[in-house]
């Protein structure tokens, strides 16, 4: 126990930032033109959600399930070779694919429900950020577009998109339970990025705070006042 207290987060780091960011470049290159297709699919998902039709929402949930499988593939084939425990994370995203499928099957709410206005706004913000802005955020930190992280290929935007979609379709307590895996992933990933000294970690932390605020107004403030 005494020895464990002498470890700092950096002591558990197995790789440097250059190696980490290049994982996305290698994956994008290996899967091309899939990155272009998933980029467009992300925009299509936003349009589908905007229709508010149950069948469209179900389609988006199923696409989110597929995206989780894509992220699991990245974790197992790219990330695990430099960080062995990522095999478990890959299983986690596999499980999340199942969760998204279950949610697609058992239901979604009416998106015009005023009780969930904050959660809905958060959901839109997270989904929009994950699909449209996150692929370009690396540019702001001096990384090339070739290393773009895309929903369905990279775990961070996929997890954020899941948090967003679940906020939209299931703002209540169960929605939080369904969000456990993407939430935990984002916490882990933010900690990894900060330990690597990467400012992008703050972006994830901000997204998590937003998610928490949106969720808590629905879950913890009595209905009719949120």
């Amino acid at each position, binding site marked *: 126990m005494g020895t464990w207290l*002498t470890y700092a987060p950096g002591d558990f780091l*197995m790789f*440097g930032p250059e190696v980490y960011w290049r994982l996305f470049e*290698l994956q994008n290159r290996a899967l091309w033109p899939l990155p272009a297709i998933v980029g467009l699919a992300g925009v299509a998902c936003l349009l589908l959600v905007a229709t508010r039709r149950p069948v469209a929402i179900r389609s988006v949930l199923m696409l989110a399930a597929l995206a989780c499988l894509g992220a699991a593939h990245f974790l197992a084939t790219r990330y695990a*070779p*430099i960080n062995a425990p990522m095999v478990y994370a890959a299983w986690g995203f596999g499980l999340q694919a199942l969760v998204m499928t279950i949610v697609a099957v058992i239901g979604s709410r009416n998106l015009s429900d005023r009780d969930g206005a904050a959660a809905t706004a958060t959901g839109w913000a997270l989904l929009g950020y994950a699909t449209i802005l996150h692929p370009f955020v690396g540019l702001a930190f001096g990384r090339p577009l070739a290393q773009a992280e895309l929903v369905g290929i990279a775990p961070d935007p996929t997890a954020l998109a899941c948090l967003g979609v679940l906020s939209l379709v299931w703002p209540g307590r169960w929605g939080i339970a369904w969000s456990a895996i993407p939430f935990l992933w984002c916490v882990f990933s933010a900690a990894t990025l900060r330990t690597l000294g990467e400012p992008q970690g703050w972006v994830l932390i901000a997204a998590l705070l937003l998610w928490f605020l949106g969720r808590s107004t629905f879950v913890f403030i009595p209905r009719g006042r949120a």
Partner: protein
Amino acid sequence: MPLSRRDLLCGVSAATAGFAFGRPAWTATASPNDVRQIPSTQTPVPVIGLGSWITFNVGDDPALLEQCADVIAAFAEEGGGMIDCSPMYGSSPDTIGYGLERLEDPSTIFSAEKVWTSAPGEGPDQIARSAEKWGVSNFDLLQVHNLRAWEAHLDHLFSMKDAGRLGHVGVTTSHGRRHETLERIMRAHPIDVVQLTYNAFDREAEARLLPLAQDRGIAVIVNRPYRRGALIDRFRGAPLPGWAPEIGADSWAQVLLKFAISHPAVTTAIPATRKVAHLRENKAAARGPLPNAALRRRIADDLSRL
């Protein structure tokens, strides 16, 4: 324990080094500071080795694998020495294997691996897998990583050495952890090598472990000579101290490395890098003068104040 050229040449011919790759061929131009001996076997080892934690964990990234192979090639060109790795370091053992395969003459490489598992029964398989990744049949040195299940692993490593399947046996720690246990092992077991953290800021080992290693004829490998680069970052941009030219140091990296290797108990230091220029700069730190005891004290004082 710097060697004279005469010692060096005799040492090389009598050495049992090059266990993994055949007899080493350290250059006749090596200066006495360049090469030291593992006391228990008289094996000569260049004083600047190469670590592999983080820097060589590049997965199957072709560009970064090439970069690492270039570093290993430059290391061999600069006289070679100890390359240190562990099954804990992700894909680093594969990267080393990739780099070694490209060497025309790997005989100057001293292979130092570790066994790292809490289940002693898994040790032999883990060692075999590491050897496969490196592309060697035997290692020059196997160390119990961070003293994990050290009693059982040491038994196995000693039996491998007795059977002629291993050159040297060692144990490692870092960050100043578990020095009491390390001291007990050094007193009670016939290990050849001990690996620990030592630099101008982490000097706990000076009190007991380094003198004990000298007394008992145990070679000392210095890890984290730059605190994983943090010490270099700390001094980045600051002018070199006035005494730097006295020891032939052209950079902060060389100041730090010269401090670590100038302790008489130190056999080799293993800075890690993925840059050929840094590798050459590190190797060059062994050439030229090293600080004497008085200057070492001054360096430690001055650096702690900067």
